[in-house]
C-alpha cells in the first residue's frame, strides 16, 4: 500500500476513536463541562495534560529547531519541562485545594477584587488565542502535506472534529480524547525514532544511541561525527553553545515560569479528585512529556547527521526521491549558484557559498522518508501530528469558553444567571472560539511566530507571580498584586513590541538590555512584578482576615488539621 492510503487509514482510525470517546463522555453538568466532574484519575490526567501541553510545535517543529540550533536548543527542552517542577511543588496542590474552576477564579477571590479578576481574564483569553491560531494552522499543514487536500479543507475538518468533542463533551470529553491523543502521538513519535536509532547506531533506545557509536563499525561516536561534519561544512559545533549565557539563562527561565503560568495547563489540575492526586498528576504529566522531550534531541542529532552526510556535495541529478518531493512543497530550496550541478550545503563559517535552504519543520515530517522507513510509519507520523495539534487546540478552546461563560458572564456581568444558562453560554462560546481559531488558521496573521514569545512572557510576568504570592505570602494584598501584574505586563509587552514590531531591525544582542532577547524578557518582567507587588503591599493595609484564613486553608490538604500524630 502506498503512503497516501496508509495515511488515510491511520488518520481515519484515530478520528473515529476521538469521536467515539466524545459521544461516550458527554458532559451533563456545569462541573463536567469545566472540570470533568473532578474525578479524573491522576495517571489519565497526566496523559491528558501531556497531550494538552505538547502542541503541533512540540511534535513537528521542536526536533528540527534543535537540529539547527545544536546545544542552544536546550532552552526549549529544559524550559518546557522544568516548569512542571514549579507546577507540582508550588502551584498545583494549592490550586486544587482552593477548588473552583479557573485561574481568574483564584486571582479574583484571593485578591478580593473584580479588577484583579478582570486583568486575569484578559490575559487568559489573549494567551489562549495566541496559541490556538498556531494549532489550527498546524492541522491545515499536516492535512495538505500528507493527504494532498487544500489547507482550507484541512482546517475545516480539524475545526469540525474539535467543535464536536469540545462543545459536546466540555472538559470531560476533552480529557478522555486527550488521553487517546497522547497515546497516538507518543507512538507516532517513538516508532520512527527507534527505527532511526537502530539504523544509525544499532541501539534500540534513542536516548542511549544518541551517545553511542555509529553503526558503520568505525567506532566513531555519533556526536563526534556530527561535530566533525559541522566543522567541515562551516557550521557551528553541535555540542557547543552560541547564544550568550545570560540570554540562555533568561529564555530558559521565561519558558519554565511561563509554562507554570499558562492557564490551559493549570486548569487541568482542577480536574483530579484530591490534593495528593494533583501532586502526583503533575509528576505523571512530566514523565509522559519527558518521553517525547528526551527523544527529540536524539532525533535532532540523528536527522542532522543524516542530512549532512546525504545532501552535501551530492549531484543534483542523483538526489533521492524525498528530496524532490519536499522541493515541490517549497520546504527545500536549491539554488545552484556556481552552476556545477552539485548541492553545496554550507554553514556561515565556510568560504563556499551555501546553495540549499531547508525548512526546519521537515526534520520530523521527512525523517521517515529520509531514513527509508515503511509507509505505515509515515501515515502514523501524520496521525500523530494531528493528535498533537487537535489536543492542544481543544484544551485552549475550553479555557476561552470558560473564561467567557464563567469568569466574565457569571462572575462579572450577570451574577444571577442559572447553571443551565451558564452551561449553554459555555457551549456557545466554545463554538464561537472554534470559528475564530479556524479563521486564524486560514488567514494566519504574519506574526504568529512572534506572538508565541508573548504568550510565555505574559504568563510569566502576570499570572505566575500573582498566584505564587497568593499562596506563599499571607501579607500580599490586592493593591500589591494588581500593580505587580499590570507593571510586569506593561514592561514585558513594551519590550517585546518594541523589538518585534516597532524596530525589528534593532532586534540584535547589541541593542538588547543586558543582552536579554525579547524571548527571555518575561523573566525580567516576573522579577519586576515580584518587586513592585511587595513594595506596594507593605505600604498598604494587609488583606482582610477571611482572606488570610483562606490562605491558611489552601496550604493544608484537609480542611481541619487535628493536632495529633497517627
Amino acid at each position, binding site marked *: 500500500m502506498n503512503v497516501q492510503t496508509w495515511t488515510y487509514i491511520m488518520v481515519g482510525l484515530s478520528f473515529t476513536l476521538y469521536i467515539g470517546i466524545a459521544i461516550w463522555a458527554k458532559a451533563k453538568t456545569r462541573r463536567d463541562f469545566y472540570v470533568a466532574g473532578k474525578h479524573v484519575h491522576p495517571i489519565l490526567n497526566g496523559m491528558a495534560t501531556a497531550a494538552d501541553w505538547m502542541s503541533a510545535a512540540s511534535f513537528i517543529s521542536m526536533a528540527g529547531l534543535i537540529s539547527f540550533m545544536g546545544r542552544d536548543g536546550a532552552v526549549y527542552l529544559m524550559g518546557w519541562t522544568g516548569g512542571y517542577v514549579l507546577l*507540582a511543588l508550588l502551584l498545583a496542590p494549592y490550586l486544587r485545594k482552593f477548588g473552583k474552576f479557573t485561574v481568574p477564579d483564584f486571582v479574583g477571590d484571593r485578591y478580593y477584587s473584580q479588577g484583579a479578576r478582570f486583568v486575569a481574564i484578559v490575559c487568559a483569553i489573549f494567551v489562549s488565542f495566541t496559541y490556538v491560531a498556531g494549532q489550527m494552522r498546524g492541522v491545515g499543514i499536516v492535512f495538505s502535506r500528507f493527504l494532498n487536500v487544500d489547507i482550507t479543507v484541512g482546517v475545516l475538518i480539524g475545526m469540525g472534529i474539535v467543535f464536536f468533542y469540545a462543545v459536546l463533551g466540555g472538559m470531560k470529553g476533552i480529557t478522555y480524547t486527550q488521553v487517546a491523543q497522547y497515546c497516538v502521538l507518543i507512538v507516532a513519535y517513538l516508532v520512527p525514532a527507534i527505527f532511526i536509532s537502530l539504523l544509525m547506531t544499532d541501539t534500540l533506545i534513542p536516548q542511549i544511541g544518541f551517545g553511542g557509536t555509529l553503526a558503520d563499525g568505525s567506532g566513531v561516536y555519533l556526536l563526534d561525527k556530527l561535530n566533525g561534519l559541522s566543522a567541515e561544512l562551516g557550521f557551528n559545533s553541535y555540542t557547543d553553545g552560541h547564544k550568550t549565557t545570560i540570554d540562555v539563562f533568561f529564555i530558559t527561565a521565561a519558558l519554565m515560569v511561563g509554562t507554570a503560568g499558562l492557564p490551559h495547563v493549570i486548569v487541568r489540575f482542577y480536574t483530579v479528585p484530591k490534593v495528593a492526586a494533583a501532586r502526583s498528576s503533575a509528576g505523571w504529566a512530566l514523565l509522559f512529556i519527558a518521553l517525547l522531550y528526551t527523544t527529540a534531541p536524539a532525533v535532532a542529532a540523528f536527522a542532522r547527521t543524516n542530512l549532512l552526510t546525504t545532501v552535501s556535495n551530492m549531484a543534483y541529478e542523483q538526489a533521492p526521491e524525498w528530496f524532490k518531493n519536499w522541493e515541490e512543497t517549497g520546504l527545500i530550496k536549491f539554488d545552484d549558484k556556481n552552476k556545477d550541478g552539485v548541492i553545496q550545503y554550507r554553514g556561515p563559517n565556510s568560504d563556499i557559498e551555501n546553495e540549499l535552504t531547508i525548512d526546519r519543520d521537515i526534520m520530523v515530517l521527512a525523517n521517515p522518508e529520509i531514513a527509508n522507513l515503511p509507509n505505515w510509519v509515515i501515515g502514523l507520523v501524520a496521525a500523530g501530528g494531528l493528535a498533537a495539534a487537535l489536543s492542544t487546540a481543544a484544551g485552549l478552546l475550553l479555557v476561552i469558553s470558560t473564561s467567557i461563560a464563567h469568569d466574565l458572564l457569571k462572575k462579572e456581568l450577570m451574577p444571577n444567571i442559572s447553571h443551565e444558562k451558564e452551561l449553554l453560554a459555555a457551549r456557545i462560546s466554545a463554538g464561537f472560539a472554534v470559528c475564530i481559531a479556524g479563521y486564524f488558521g486560514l488567514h494566519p496573521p504574519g506574526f504568529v511566530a512572534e506572538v508565541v514569545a508573548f504568550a510565555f512572557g505574559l504568563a510569566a510576568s502576570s499570572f505566575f507571580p500573582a498566584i505564587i504570592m497568593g499562596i506563599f505570602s499571607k501579607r500580599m494584598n490586592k493593591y500589591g498584586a494588581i500593580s505587580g501584574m499590570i507593571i510586569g505586563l506593561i514592561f514585558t509587552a513594551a519590550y517585546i513590541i518594541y523589538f518585534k514590531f516597532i524596530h525589528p531591525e534593532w532586534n540584535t544582542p547589541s541593542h538588547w538590555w543586558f543582552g536579554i532577547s525579547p524571548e527571555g524578557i518575561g523573566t525580567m518582567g516576573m522579577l519586576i512584578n515580584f518587586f513592585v507587588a511587595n513594595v506596594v503591599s507593605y505600604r498598604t493595609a494587609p488583606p482582610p482576615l477571611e482572606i488570610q484564613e483562606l490562605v491558611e486553608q489552601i*496550604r493544608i490538604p484537609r480542611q481541619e488539621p487535628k493536632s495529633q500524630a497517627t
Partner: protein
Amino acid sequence: MTQDYSAASYWKKNLQYLSILLSVWFIVSYGCGILFVDQLNKIRIGGFYLGFWFAQQGAIYVFVILIGIYVQLMKRLDRQYNVHEQEADPS
C-alpha cells in the same frame, strides 16, 4: 518526645522540602545545563559531553525524579500531621 503537629509546623516542614528540592532543580538546569556547561563539557561519558548531556537529557530526568520524591515526602508528611485526605472526597 513531644512534637509540634500544628499547621504552622506542617507548613514550615513543607517549605524546607521545597527549598531543598528547588535547589537541586536549579543546580541541574541552570547550574549544570547553563552556567557551568562549558566546564562540564570537558568530561566525557560515552559519546556524550557531560554539560551537553545535562542540558539536553539529564536535567529532564532529574525533574521527573524530583517530583516523584516530592510526592512521596508529602504523602508521608500529610499522614504524620494527620492532614491527609480521606478516600473518595464527597464534595
